[in-house]
């Protein structure tokens, strides 16, 4: 038997006057747990319906266990593929057990009744999804979340080789979201089922799936491991609004950033220049991105902790060679960025001979009348490895109007004031 569960080759599908899928190719092996993510209207559900054979692709082919799906009848498909969709109807008062038993229908002959094995499989599926105590309740009386779980149970009772799910966690509380995802994962691994799930929650996809397919406008924009597909560049391009991605336990974690509207992107009143390094900028960057500011950071050595963070958050940086002192050319470039920003913030970065040049940017900004803020001056002595040179510069800066900030919240207040001031003066 083939190890390939589903193979999709160049599938195109359009409704009259509307192209939905423009050539999609993908493969899901048995044991794979694949997530399909993408913005509304990117064709995720249509892709699922084409894979399940419910919609017939106008071009391209879908193979289930190497069988061309267009040559299989509904019953033959239903014995291999089960689907948890979005359009299930719960208007008629079947009991939960009856509903789950419907999953056995493709496996029993026209004049057969449910065998004890069928009932056993239904009960097992109900146990897995945590619905056995509702077995005799009418499905009409269940909550939306309970109905989702009953649907998953029905799909499991179907004993599929391929399981397709459209938003299986919708309407579930966090506890059941995690349970369903873990269940799907173990189903894929232990029973060698190819599981393909359309998910809205990218973090859920990232945490549980082997592969992520990122769809955009009817095509696959990116596909691969969560770490390779879920990047801030990809997501920003596909969703059209900036998102930040950081790594949590080796998997990408996405968090939203307040949208920068078209008019404010490239707008000096929303841009902040951050001087950091060595991982000192992390909390500041996350906070001010969330507040809706655009950030340029520099000068950073390639490979520095803050540089890596900026890369994952999609923040523009002024780069210097790894472990090298800041060169005059980079400093000059950074000064230009600082002048195009509404303010400059200096993090709790330690100073040594290598990055002393960064203080020139601070001094220059002050001279040119840009607002400057310095985070956590109290402990500066312990971070000064320049024999007091850096301290001198900073004290001069504070004397000529730079603000002292204690925490990130203050930084946001400071930046809002600067933004307001820049807007009024422009």
């Amino acid at each position, binding site marked *: 038997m083939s190890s390939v569960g589903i193979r999709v080759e160049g599938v195109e599908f359009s409704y009259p006057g509307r192209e939905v899928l423009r050539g999609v190719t993908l493969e899901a092996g048995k044991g794979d747990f694949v997530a399909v993510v993408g913005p509304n209207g990117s064709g995720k559900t249509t892709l699922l*319906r084409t894979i*399940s*054979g*419910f919609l017939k692709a106008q071009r391209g082919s879908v193979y289930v266990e190497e069988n061309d799906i267009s040559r299989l*009848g*509904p*019953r033959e*498909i*239903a*014995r291999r*593929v*089960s*689907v948890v*969709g979005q*359009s*299930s*109807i719960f*208007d*008629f*008062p*079947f*009991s939960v*057990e*009856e*509903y789950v038993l*419907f*999953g056995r*229908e*493709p496996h029993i002959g*026209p004049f057969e009744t449910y065998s004890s094995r069928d*009932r056993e499989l239904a009960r097992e599926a109900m146990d897995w999804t945590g619905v056995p105590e509702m*077995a*005799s*309740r*009418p499905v009409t009386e269940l909550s939306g979340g309970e109905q989702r779980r009953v649907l998953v149970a029905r799909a499991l009772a*179907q004993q599929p080789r391929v399981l397709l799910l459209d938003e299986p966690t919708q309407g579930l509380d966090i506890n059941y979201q995690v349970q369903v995802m873990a269940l799907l994962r173990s189903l894929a691994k232990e029973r060698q089922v190819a599981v393909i799930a359309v998910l809205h929650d990218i973090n859920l996809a990232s945490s549980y799936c082997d592969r992520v397919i990122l769809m955009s406008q009817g095509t696959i924009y990116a596909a691969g491991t969560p770490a390779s597909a879920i990047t801030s560049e990809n997501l920003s391009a596909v969703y059209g609004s900036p998102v930040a991605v950081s790594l949590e336990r080796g998997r990408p974690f996405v968090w939203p950033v307040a949208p920068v509207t078209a008019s404010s992107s490239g707008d000096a009143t929303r841009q902040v220049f951050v001087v950091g390094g060595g991982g000192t900028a992390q909390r500041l960057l996350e906070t001010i991105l969330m507040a809706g500011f655009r950030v340029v950071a520099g000068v950073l050595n390639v490979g520095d902790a803050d540089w890596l963070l900026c890369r994952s958050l999609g923040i523009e940086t002024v780069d210097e060679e790894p472990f090298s002192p800041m060169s005059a050319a980079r400093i000059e470039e950074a000064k230009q960025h600082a002048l195009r920003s509404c303010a400059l913030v200096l993090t709790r970065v330690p100073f040594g001979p290598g990055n002393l040049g960064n203080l020139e940017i601070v001094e220059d900004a002050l001279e040119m009348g840009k607002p400057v803020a310095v985070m956590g001056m109290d402990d500066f002595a312990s971070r000064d490895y320049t024999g007091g040179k850096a301290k001198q510069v900073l004290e001069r800066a504070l004397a000529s109007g730079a603000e002292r900030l204690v925490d990130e919240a203050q930084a946001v207040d400071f930046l809002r004031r600067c933004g307001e001031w820049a807007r009024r003066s422009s």
Partner: protein
Amino acid sequence: MSRRSRGEGRLGARAATGLLLALTACALLAAASTGAAHVGPRTVGAMILARFGLLRAVPWWSEVDESIVFDIRLPRAVLGMLVGGSLAVCGAAFQGLFRNVMADPFILGVSPGAALGAALAIVLRVDVKLFGISAIPLFAFGGGLLTSVLVYSLSRIRSTVPVHTLLLTGIAVGSVLSSLTSLVMVLGQRDLYQVFFWIMGGLGGKTWAHVRMVLPYAALGIVAILLSARELNLMLLGEEDAFHLGVSVERTKLRILVAASLAAAAAVAAAGVVGFVGLIVPHATRLVVGPDHKVFLPSAMLAGSATVLAADMVARSAFGSQEIPLGIVTALLGAPFFLFLLRTKGAGK
């Protein structure tokens, strides 16, 4: 386990079928015992058993009595059972197919189509026979079948037939056909009375010949629907889910539409337009036995038979010797009962 699995307050499959079988048998016996000539249920029961060789007794009834029961009352009762069973099963199948408890055979325009066919046959005095079937039921049957084909093809959008389009098309086509029937009645005034009474529905004067005419179509339709019970169950979950559980959705729709057209057209051909049986009987039955078509369809069939038998007894005895059309009785008693269900059981959910 199987007991627990059923929804609460639902009757088991066996209990429901047994009860309904007994009820229908009683209704049949009662129908064969009701009439001007006094032949009681005990005598009728004995006559039937003796006829099938199950009772060895010296007949205490006259030949006239026997003729009244076997040539007048029984064919009428058996036809009533066929009509009631057909209409109820038809309505049940449509309610399942449309996932709408307000659907009945008339909504699809099948019955108005059959009525128009019958009216044409009467007014035009068509005198053809096909396979031994006379013109009126043949035209009624053809009218019903043509209407469903028309509604089906008018509702077709590419390769699918959305059920709500089917429903609305059925209503529109049905009202056109009803107007045409009225037009035929106005133009063929000398036959107005016959067409009018035919349409109002009734079992008066029906013989075994009528039973033989109707039986094959009704049986074929009913059997095809009963065999589609599992597909109908899955259709209740939505067409997409039905497909994913192995149902050929469009093929099932077509099969049910053809089967229901056969059964409904046969019923209307035999008894005219008997209203509300196809709507209320399935509805009330579902409330008692639950939505599983494997139990629900046979139950609805038996309940439909018993209902029409009871209604026919009212039709021929309520106003003394003046028999009233069956359709009036079913509508008069059915509609208030329906309102009662609507208010007490929240049927319009």
